[in-house]
């Protein structure tokens, strides 16, 4: 037995590590880890109110930035979607007729930097406007159709960049019978600036909340250390290494983290489900392809790992500051 040989080695050689029977050592090491993890969990379960509160606090503090991040990536999805379908609209002069419209459409459509064209004759445009705006009565008072013929051109893949589209617009503007060329990049740029700003805000928030979580866990673990002071002293007295004494507290931190992560996951799923209806309706009102993307399974797992890591870190801070300071010389004053 490894322990037998250690005992017989005497204090001097005992300090040197034994390489024999490493398999037995490894097995009992793993078994001890498992046992410590289980006992730490049971301790948390034994105090459901305190642990539940900590889990909920963690859950909220994690769900908030995570939810915002998800919203952000949904918004970025919108701008990406628009970028790929950003179409250039050519308004023809009022005087242009149907033949000129068809000729222009053919000319634009044959360009290598345009992948697709659509034609909207002025009558059709008016009809659609009439249908969608609800102003048909007012329109009846107009003597003539105020809307011009329209050609919509989709830039080809290689020119779908702000500079590429701008160059295309410049060239299309030169064409005959074209009154105005519009490309709806303006609000896209605004959106992307706003998402960038929002992104920074969210990351700052996430960072601050992560620090707060580490402190919360640290404080919780500090209380746990205080309440188990005697056990720590005795463990150290019978030869427990610092690593051994720390282990249950580090596991406690990990359990807090995992529980908090799970809480956050549940909160996110519930609140996204709650929001998805109204958001979908709002998006359809804006004819947007916006979809509120929920938490994917992989992201959820990542969040769990991250929160477990935060819990561990918080525990580590507490253990470093409070546990290593407990030394057996205090045993009689304890």
């Amino acid at each position: 037995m490894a322990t037998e040989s250690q005992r017989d080695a005497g204090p001097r050689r005992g300090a040197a590590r034994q390489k024999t029977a490493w398999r037995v050592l490894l097995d009992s090491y793993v078994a001890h880890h498992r046992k410590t993890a289980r006992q730490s969990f049971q301790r948390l379960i034994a105090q459901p109110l305190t642990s539940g509160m900590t889990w909920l606090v963690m859950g909220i503090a994690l769900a908030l930035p995570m939810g915002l991040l998800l919203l952000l990536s949904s918004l970025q999805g919108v701008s990406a979607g628009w970028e790929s379908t950003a179409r250039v609209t050519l308004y023809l002069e009022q005087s242009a007729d149907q033949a000129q419209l068809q000729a222009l459409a053919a000319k634009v459509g044959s360009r290598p930097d345009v992948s697709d064209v659509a034609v909207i004759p002025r009558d059709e445009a008016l009809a659609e406007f009439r249908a969608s705006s609800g102003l048909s009565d007012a329109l009846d008072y107009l003597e003539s159709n105020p809307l011009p013929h329209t050609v919509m051109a989709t830039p080809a893949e290689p020119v779908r960049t702000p500079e590429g589209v701008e160059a295309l617009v410049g060239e299309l503007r030169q064409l005959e019978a074209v009154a105005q060329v519009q490309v709806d990049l303006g609000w896209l740029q605004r959106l992307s600036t706003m998402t960038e700003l929002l992104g920074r805000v969210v990351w700052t928030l996430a960072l601050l909340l992560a620090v707060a979580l580490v402190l919360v866990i640290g404080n919780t673990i500090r209380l746990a250390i205080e309440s188990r002071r005697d056990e720590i002293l005795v463990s150290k007295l019978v030869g427990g290494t610092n690593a051994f004494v720390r282990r249950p507290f580090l596991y406690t931190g990990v359990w807090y983290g995992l529980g908090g992560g799970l809480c956050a996951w549940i909160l996110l799923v519930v609140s996204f489900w709650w929001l998805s209806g109204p958001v979908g309706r709002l998006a359809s009102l804006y004819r947007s392809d916006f979809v509120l993307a929920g938490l994917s399974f992989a992201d959820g797992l990542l969040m769990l790992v991250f929160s477990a890591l935060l819990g561990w870190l918080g525990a580590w801070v507490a253990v470093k500051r409070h546990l290593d300071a407990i030394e057996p010389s205090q045993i009689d004053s304890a």
Partner: protein
Amino acid sequence: MIEFDRVSKRYDGGYTALKGVSFAMDRGEMAFLTGHSGAGKSTLLKLMTVMERPSAGNVLVGGQALNRLRPRQVPFLRRHIGVVFQNHQLLFDRTVFDNVAMPLEVIGAPPGEIGRRVRAALDKVGLLNKERMNPIALSGGEQQRVGIARAVVNKPPLLLADEPTGNLDPELSADIMQLFEQFSQVGVTVLVASHDAELVRAMGNRVLTLREGELVSGGASPREQLHGH
């Protein structure tokens, strides 16, 4: 096994608990440490497990100079020293069995071996039938015996006991001393701090006497006697 070389201990408060203490003990030797209350008995024992560090002088345990021991190595030293504490230091949040098992847990002994060794130790102190109880439900003497079982469960080569019979009746005290005697016969070095002058005399072992931090008798080691030192 133990060597004290002009060891002094001055506590932070300024009180000097030990003054120039020198003695040595061989492997398998059993000795008593006596002296009035406050003479420095507990302090002397604490130096051996590095619960305290000496202010001057050297302490060697098992050939290891303790003042050269780095903090990381201290736990490994303690695993080879069984200690019975003056106030037993039992944990009341777990059973007698789990209390006694602690020294085996810290070295990562396999569960089967833990069970076997803990029962053997409890059997030696006559508490095998109480392993499932919480130590708080035991009498003072029984608690002390649990502390003894925990000190010996690991079969350490050095056993230190601080007033191990303080709460025991004379008969039980004698039994416990017999137990210590048996340990020393199988090669364990045993040092027992005790007030019980009568019991100490009855045992007939070497006696180290402290008075106000000074070793006034029993200081010469067997080896030194041999060399006519």
